[in-house]
Structures are given as C-alpha cells and as structure tokens.
C-alpha cells in the first residue's frame, strides 16, 4: 500500500467515523467536537486530491467561521443530554445503514476512479489557476451571491432592530 493510499483511507475513516459519532451522541458538545474532526478530515482529503486552496478554504470557512458560530449557539442553549432523551423506532439501524452504504460506495466506486497523486508537494499548485478563474469566469456568480448575502444581512439587521425597539417600548409601558 502506498503512503498516499494509507493516508486517504485514514482520513476517510476519520471523516466517516466522526460523522457517525455526530449521529449517535446525545451530547451536543461532543457532536460539535466530532464535526470539527469530520471537517478536518474533509480538508485533508481535498489536499490529498491536489486541491490545496480548497482544503485551506475548508478550514478557514467551516472551522474558523461556521463551527465557531455553532459553538456560540451551543454554549448559549446547552442542556444536559438527559433532558431530551427520546426514542425513535429503528433509529439506530437506519443510522448504521447509511454510513455503511457510504463506505460501500466509496470502496467500490470512488476509490479506483480517484486521480491520486504521488506527492502533493511535487505538483504545481492550483492557486494561480483558481484565482484567475474566480476573478474572470466565475466573478458574476460570486458577485450575485455576495449581493444576496448583503440583502440577508441588511434584512437581519432590520428585523433585529425592530425587535429591540418593540422590547424597549414594552419596557416603557410596564
């Protein structure tokens, strides 16, 4: 087994294993930590596939941004896992089946097809190509997404400010 294949299997197991932990744990905190491990595994898989920029973006956006915000949410709403014990029939069997199916698909289909590289450092980086594409061909799409996000941001700010004002006026009435 080549080194690169070993690492590929290692990070695949890490990604899928952490995802299984997220499904089964009842503690939100453990789920978030497992999500961290899963996302790191995905970033490593990107790097192994030769997409170093995408790997780093994965870390900076999903771990540095989304996951930290998720943690904030979890921290404010945390309750002991015992408080929401509930049972859904066949839950465990479904949650075992789905990851197993994923592993099966990965082993049968994706593994032989994946263009594996021998050494990530030996290949020319994709930074320049990606950068050029982003600023030429795909620029309009990114601009549109940026505009939509701006609209969402202003909307959220507006809703937030009206809620605060309502709270204030209620406080005055009392």
């Amino acid at each position, binding site marked *: 087994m080549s080194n690169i294949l070993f690492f590929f299997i290692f990070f695949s197991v890490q990604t899928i294993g952490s995802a299984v932990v997220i499904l089964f744990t009842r503690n939100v*905190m453990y789920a978030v930590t497992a999500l961290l491990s899963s996302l790191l595994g995905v970033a490593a898989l990107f790097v192994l596939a030769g997409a170093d920029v995408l790997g*780093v973006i994965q*870390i900076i956006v999903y*771990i*540095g941004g989304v*996951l*930290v915000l998720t943690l*904030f949410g979890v*921290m404010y709403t945390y309750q002991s896992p015992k408080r929401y014990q509930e049972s859904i029939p066949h839950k465990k069997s479904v949650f075992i089946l789905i990851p197993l199916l994923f592993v099966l698909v990965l082993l049968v289909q994706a593994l032989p097809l994946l263009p594996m590289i021998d050494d990530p450092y030996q290949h020319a980086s994709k*930074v320049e190509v990606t950068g050029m594409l982003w600023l030429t061909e795909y620029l309009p799409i990114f601009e549109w997404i940026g505009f939509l996000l701006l609209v969402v941001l202003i909307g959220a700010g507006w809703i937030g400010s009206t809620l605060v004002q309502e709270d204030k006026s209620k406080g005055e009435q009392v």
Partner: protein
Amino acid sequence: MRIQMFCINFVRMLALSIGLALILSYAVFVIYAERKVSAFVQDRLGPMETGPYGLLQTVADLIKLLQKEDIVPYGAHLWLFKAAPIIIFTAVFTGFACMPLAPELIGAPINVGVFFLLSIVSIDVLGVFIAGWSSNNKFSILGALRGIAQIVSYELPLTLAVLSVVLLSGTLNLEYINFQQHAHVTLLSDTTYFPWGDWTMKDAKAIGGIFTWNIIRYPFLIVSMCIFFIASLAECNRAPFDIPEGESELVSGFHTEYSGFRFAILFLAEYAMMLLVSLLLVVLFLGGTNTPFPNIGAVALCDWTSGTLGHWSSNAWGFFWLVSKAFGIVFLQMMMRWTYPRLRVDQLMLLCWKVLLPISLVMVLCSAYWVYWLKQ
C-alpha cells in the same frame, strides 16, 4: 531520484526537529526574560535566588509543574478537558511547518503558506473554547466567551494586513516572499523598485540589506505592519488585550482549572504563538532571513553577513537573522504588556471594528494601486 527524495525528506524532518527544539528552548528563556523585563520595567530585580541572576528559575518552575498531580475538576467533561491543551499546542506547532526557518530550511514549502497559517490560528480558538467550556467553571466559560469574540473580530484586520503584503508580492508562499526580499536570490530582479525613477530591484539587491525588505520597498506598509502587530497581540491574548484571562477579573480565564503538565502545555502554546506571529511579521515585512546591513562600496556588510547561498553558512546566517528579528518583536510584545493597561471589552471591539478595520481596508486599496502603478 531516491537519494534526492531522501534528502528532501531529511530536510523536512530536520526543520521539524529544529522547530520543536527552538520552541522548547525559547519557552524556557522567554519566560525568564518576561520576568526580568517586567522587573526592570517596574524598577525591581526579578528572580535572583535560583542560580546566577535567577537563571535557573524557569527550570525549577518546569520541574515543579511536571511533578504536580494531574487534577481534573469535578463535573468537567473528561475527554474534552484532556484534549483541549493538545488541540491548542498542535494547532500552534503546525503553524511552524510552513515557516521558512532559513533560506533552505522549511518544513512544508506549500503554495498557500500564509493562508494556511491564518486558518491554523482559527483552530487554536476552538481549543480555547473547549478548554473553557469543559472546565465546569464560571471564570473559564467567561474567559472562553471573551476569547472567541476577541479572536474572531481581530482575525479580520490581521488578514487584511497580510493581504496588503500578499497583493504586492503576488504569492501566498512564505518561502517565495522570503526569497523576494533576499539580496542573493535573483527573484524579481528585473522589476522596478519604486513606481517613479528607473531604479530596478537588481540595483537594490546589489546594495542588499535593509533596502530589499518589504517595509522599505513599500514604505506605506508600515501602517499595515502596525495593524498586524496590534491584531497579533489580540490573537495571542497578550496584554493590553488579555481580557480572556485578565487575572484581576477572571482568575486566569479559560485555563483557571488547569494544573501541572496540562497547564505547562497551555503556557508553552501561548509563548509559541507569540513566536509564530513574530516570525510571520518578520517574513512578511522585515526581510525574513535577510540581513539588515547594506553593502557600502568596498565595505560589503551585506555579503559578509549573508553567507554563500547554497552553503551551510547562508542557512546559519539566515536562521540567526530571522530568529534575532523575531526575538526583537517578542521583546516589544513584552514591553507592551508591562506598559499599557488592559482594555475594556467595549474599547476592544471599538478599536477593532471602527479603527483597525477601516484603516486596513484602505491599506489593501493602497497596495492594489501601488501594484497597478508599478506595472504601468
């Protein structure tokens, strides 16, 4: 081919072991230095009893820490509590991998080096959060809360300050950024030095020394450097931005419940982070492994203090200059800590969002115009 691969791998492993040895020995000395600097700032003597001039004080402290009992507080989340120091130290130590320690000594010469470093800093935040949350302590959770809010906000001016350099150097690879400022590497030698006049980079590299540093070549970068320095202080949780662990309010913030070896690891990670951001500042702005002395006619100070490229002397000089400059920045960080009082939370946020962020955005625009001007 095999021998070549072996050599490359050998250099990478060498960079790893030198990096680790550098961090460990640096931590011992820098903690002693911190005590002495604080003492001299406050007109005291500092540690004097253990060894000559108290030199063995840190060693004694380390032995004490390693002997202590490993305590996990009641009600703490065992696994998260134990994992947090490992996450924090691993994140900081990984950052050293893409840092050029000498012209030819680098752990991982990846093309997205700067970007990778900035992303690694964000994993460090998660460690801080997990440490604070899993301790089952009010002070810890408050410290973690403040820490995350601070680091997430200060990442923006930090990244923008780095971006202004990246725009000018046109690469994310720290090794290339270092080589661009090196007097003996012919990289960039046919580009013009300033947008005006007919001085080229080749003339500048013939003089060498401070004239090939980014901070002299692009003089407006001094503003970016100041922003980077301030934001990096906040990223390291150093005073005057040490509100996540402010002793007088929160005992010691997110690491209140840690003791013994785990506390030692957290402490080590904090000082390693200081060194990491100082090294990054030196590579981005202050010439990296390049000497500060220029050639003045027959007195070839630059050539004498740079060694021959490809020879061990060049690597030794490069390592010496890089580490000396970084230690200078670390000393500045210490002086800051013992000079300025701690900021309030609202002052901290005001400084970040209303002062540093607009200035760093303007600096990015300045860099873009400078590049446009150079290319005309």
